[in-house]
């Protein structure tokens, strides 16, 4: 029997005046799963997280987290969830330790002091615990924010753009921490713009543009959206040759490979069956074919297509 999802959105909708921020979102997230929420700015990722965490109420639909309705009992829910907000948000004049102690003071912890100390140690911030947060870099603040989200050892974590605005090194360090959390068996909802991050961390991703456009494992999503395309590398490729390729009956579209080294990307009706015919056609027209290979689409390309289609 399939286990009950621990986080549920059932027709979840949120309107702000006439604007619909989240539109009939339905999804279930299983225990110990990491779900990535992908979407452009204004897609409703933060609003969806805020509804799941009981910070705002839905206009219609139902949410459930750990068997609780976030709008009905937010305070009880907050004892079992952790939220890393988009902006770290700390009292700059207070030390890292004092900041964490303040937030920890709202949870029913047996030994709050020890919990603060453990959370700081976990994020490698013990040596800076007495320093004012105002002196911290953005990366350190984000690590401290993750320590705050974990100070009460929640089963469920909501991470809203955890690596936004971080330099690559700090982002990589934070991603390592998130990977460790996955190892702890927590359920994590991660909203991000970073598709490589989503692919590396998430078991499933949901592409959101006020409503869910697609949901699935990153690999499956890529495969499902893959068009039959091949990359051609030709010595001295020219516009005339490209035009000739476009006129072939089994070619749906052809263009310059702008990301590659000057070859062409050709969409075929059937990438497997039509590939030999394409190669023959190039050679017949005097083209010197250097390489012909299948194009593996990145999650980014799939995402951009989905968002474009979803926005129309």
């Amino acid at each position, binding site marked *: 029997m399939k286990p009950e999802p621990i986080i549920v959105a059932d027709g979840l909708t949120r309107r702000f005046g006439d604007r619909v921020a989240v539109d009939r979102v339905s999804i279930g997230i299983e225990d110990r799963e990491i779900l990535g929420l992908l979407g452009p700015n204004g897609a409703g990722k933060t609003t969806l997280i805020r509804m799941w965490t009981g*910070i705002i*109420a839905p206009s219609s639909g139902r949410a459930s987290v750990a068997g609780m309705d976030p709008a009905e009992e937010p305070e009880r829910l907050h004892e079992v969830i952790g*939220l890393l907000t988009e902006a770290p*948000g700390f009292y700059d*004049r207070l030390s890292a330790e004092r900041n964490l102690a303040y937030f920890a003071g709202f949870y029913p912890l047996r030994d709050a002091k020890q919990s603060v100390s453990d959370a700081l140690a976990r994020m490698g911030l013990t040596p800076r615990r007495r320093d004012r947060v105002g002196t911290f870099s953005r990366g350190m603040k984000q690590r401290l924010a993750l320590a705050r989200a974990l100070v009460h050892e929640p089963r469920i974590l909501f991470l809203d753009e955890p690596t936004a605005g971080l330099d690559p090194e700090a982002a990589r360090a934070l991603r390592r921490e998130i990977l460790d959390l996955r190892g702890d068996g927590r359920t994590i909802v991660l909203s991000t713009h970073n598709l490589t991050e989503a692919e590396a961390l998430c078991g499933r991703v949901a592409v959101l543009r006020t409503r869910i456009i697609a949901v699935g494992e990153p690999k499956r999503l890529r495969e499902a959206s893959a068009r039959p395309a091949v990359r051609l590398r030709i010595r001295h490729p020219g516009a005339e040759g490209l035009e000739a390729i476009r006129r072939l009956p089994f070619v749906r579209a052809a263009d310059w490979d702008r990301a590659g080294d000057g070859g062409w990307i050709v969409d075929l009706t059937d990438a497997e069956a039509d590939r030999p015919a394409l190669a023959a056609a190039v050679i017949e027209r005097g083209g010197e074919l250097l390489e012909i290979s299948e194009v593996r689409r990145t999650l980014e390309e799939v995402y951009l297509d989905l968002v474009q289609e979803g926005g129309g």
Partner: protein
Amino acid sequence: MIARIRNVMGKEWATMARSPSSLLFFGVIPLLLVGQALFLSWIIPRFVSPASLAGGPSVGEGVDGVERLRVLILSQFRFFILLIPAMVANVFATLSIVEEKLTRTLEPLLATPVRTWELLTGKVLSGAIPAVLITWGCAGLFLLLAGALGWGRSMVAVLSASWFLSLFLLTPAVSILSFLLGVIGSSRAADAKSAQNLAVLVVLPIFALIVVQVTGLVWFTPWLTVLLAAGIAGIDGLLVVLAVRLFARESIVVRWR
């Protein structure tokens, strides 16, 4: 519950203790007000004819016009001193809320199990308690200095039941009123300065109280003082309802600027 309220208060005081400009404000402004009250009590009887005194408090047998005038001025200190809780509590409120907004700490705070009323109570008490204590401290200092200036006989006439009722009823009521107005103003303001503009709403009625009493329009007897305190407490109650609504999670995220 109590632990969470104390947690909020502890954080507010720790933050304020690390703000030198706020500490300077809380230390200097109340002392200036005490000094100003004493100076006026000394200078006015020298330039204003006691004959112009109409009405006012009954001071007793054998008291000359100058002293009657001084008693009248000194007795206004019970209203004048209300400027201290009004300003201190308001500054506390605006700095507290505006800082939360500027540092964007409210959303992580809203993701903890703290309840709206616990957060609000902690914040109100963290502002109102120092405001009341500073005011009472200033009242004590005022009495000491008035005694040192040889105005002991005048002060005996000033220290009426109304004076103490003002100190122990009006001061807390005004502190809470000022703090709540600061909270409400701050929820819509982008910075502390614009939030503090609302402080005028509290300061102006205090000046009005002084004016009506000095001009003899109304003399605040103990009963009137109790009524006034009850009226302010009633307004406090209404403002608490409004502030609790403003402090609801959804309001903070959706409506606050």
